[in-house]
């Protein structure tokens, strides 16, 4: 038990800070007051921070899950012998897509899906897809030819080769892609507030519109803490995986 806590102490620390910020923001009113002495209100109250956090997480979770499923599947398909024709196309799309600013994706999805959570999820999913796809391709292509020949040569079925050998060996690289994707998604989800999704971006946007620096800071701190918390969790998972595969 102690060993487990010790192993996860990084993420636990950030989680504790995050929860503190969510539930005890009011305690720090005096600090924010320094920042905006003239404002009528210094703590954002339109929605509770817990509610915003939950919705933010929901948007991120749905978008990230879709991105991971689609990204990994696409990566697998185009590296099979029957899907190889699409490999150049897909890897090109993956690299071009990465140069597209997320705000542009967001803006483009509004005419398609209207305002709210849905276009935000769609845009986040598209944007988060790319790191997953790119790393899945790199991971699968990095598996040595001799390992694959041996796997087939000893009589594994194509599915067994994929699951037990290819994906298992590529998993650290794929996981690194997922980590990047999720972290980007958490940060980018805040922009969803501009098109009507209710996220931790709400205080930021409200603060910018009303010239209330305290609101902006509260939103930014929460987004930052959430991102660090999730990122450090991934770091621990990757660390564990590396240990298991005997460095």
């Amino acid at each position: 038990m102690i060993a487990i806590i010790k192993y996860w102490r990084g993420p636990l620390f950030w989680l504790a800070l995050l929860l503190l910020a969510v539930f005890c923001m009011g305690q720090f009113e005096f600090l924010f007051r320094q920042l905006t002495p003239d404002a009528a209100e210094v703590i954002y109250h339109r929605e509770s921070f817990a509610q915003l956090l939950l919705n933010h997480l929901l948007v991120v979770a749905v978008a990230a899950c879709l991105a991971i499923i689609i990204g990994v599947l696409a990566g697998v398909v185009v590296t099979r012998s029957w899907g190889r024709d699409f490999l150049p196309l897909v890897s090109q799309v993956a690299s071009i897509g990465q140069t597209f600013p997320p705000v542009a994706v967001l803006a483009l999805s509004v005419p398609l899906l209207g305002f709210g959570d849905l276009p935000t999820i769609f845009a986040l999913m598209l944007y988060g897809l790319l790191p997953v796809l790119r790393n899945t391709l790199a991971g699968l292509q990095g598996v040595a030819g001799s390992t694959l020949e041996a796997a087939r040569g000893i009589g594994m079925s194509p599915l067994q080769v994929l699951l037990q050998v290819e994906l298992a060996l590529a998993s650290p690289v794929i996981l690194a892609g997922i980590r990047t994707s999720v972290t980007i998604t958490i940060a980018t989800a805040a922009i969803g507030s501009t098109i009507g999704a209710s996220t931790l971006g709400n205080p930021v946007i409200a603060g910018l519109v009303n010239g209330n620096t305290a609101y902006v800071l509260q939103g930014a701190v929460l987004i930052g803490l959430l991102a660090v918390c999730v990122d450090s969790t991934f770091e621990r998972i990757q660390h564990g995986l590396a240990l298991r595969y005997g460095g």
Partner: protein
Amino acid sequence: MSDAAMIELRNVSRQFGDITAVDKLSLRIEKGEICVFIGTSGCGKSTTLRLLNKLIDCSSGEIWVDGEDVASLDSKLLRRRMGYAIQSTGLFPHWTVERNIGVVPRLLGWPADRIDARVRELLELLSLPYATFVHKFPSQLSGGQAQRVGVARALAADPDILLMDEPFGALDPITREALQNELLRIQSHIHKTIVFVTHDIDEALRLATRIVVMDKGRIVQHDTPENLLNNPVNSFVEDLLGQGERGLKRASLERVEDFMLPLGAAGLPSLSIEAGSSLRQALSLMLWQRADLLCVRDQAQVPLGILPISALLQSKSS
């Protein structure tokens, strides 16, 4: 279907685009043989091996294994009946030695305790101490150890046929010879049908019951090591055998006990050699010690006969 051939190729060809990697190959490999393929790089040895376990398909011709046309067999099931060891070992880097060796038995659904017993047995057979190696990952093994594990994995499910593509390549001569001896020792217990690819003519002469010399996808000569040395069909085979060394190569296949003379009334020569040694070793000893007579003894040092240098020049007795 002709009787007794474990593996039979009939007019087998395989093209890759314009390249004909294997060209109308016909060949019979009998049960219990060690058939060694040798030839220049790119002559189609590995391709032939991959045709046998259906990693690639024939462009034309038929391959029969143990009385069945492989075209009609499920490739997974066929491969699980054939051990496959390759030069680069192809060990799974994310699995321990134990899991690597046990992979085919696991695919075949053996119970865990039987797999464990088999892994122990194989590690012992290949002189890898169980406790030291069982939990190691491939990256923690030396080249020779990894190749042993590769051979152990090929043997794990006790297949009738072993396909080995330069399994001892890229090893130093001493480790290589140790592994060759191990293979011969193991083979004397288990009597598999082994198809073995090598670049090394000495390895071929040492291991083979019959050697297949290949060039440009065709068989140049298919013969026993003795016949290959005594009657190479053309200059290609002669070159492969290394012209200047042919006498020594043949001598390394011949055993002292087949050439020794009965013990005479005269006293025993002071220099001794074991009956199972090769004529090459005997000759080397004579040259080194500048002696023309050796005493032949068995493993318990009991004198069995004498070997004068003139006896080396006789054709084989028996």
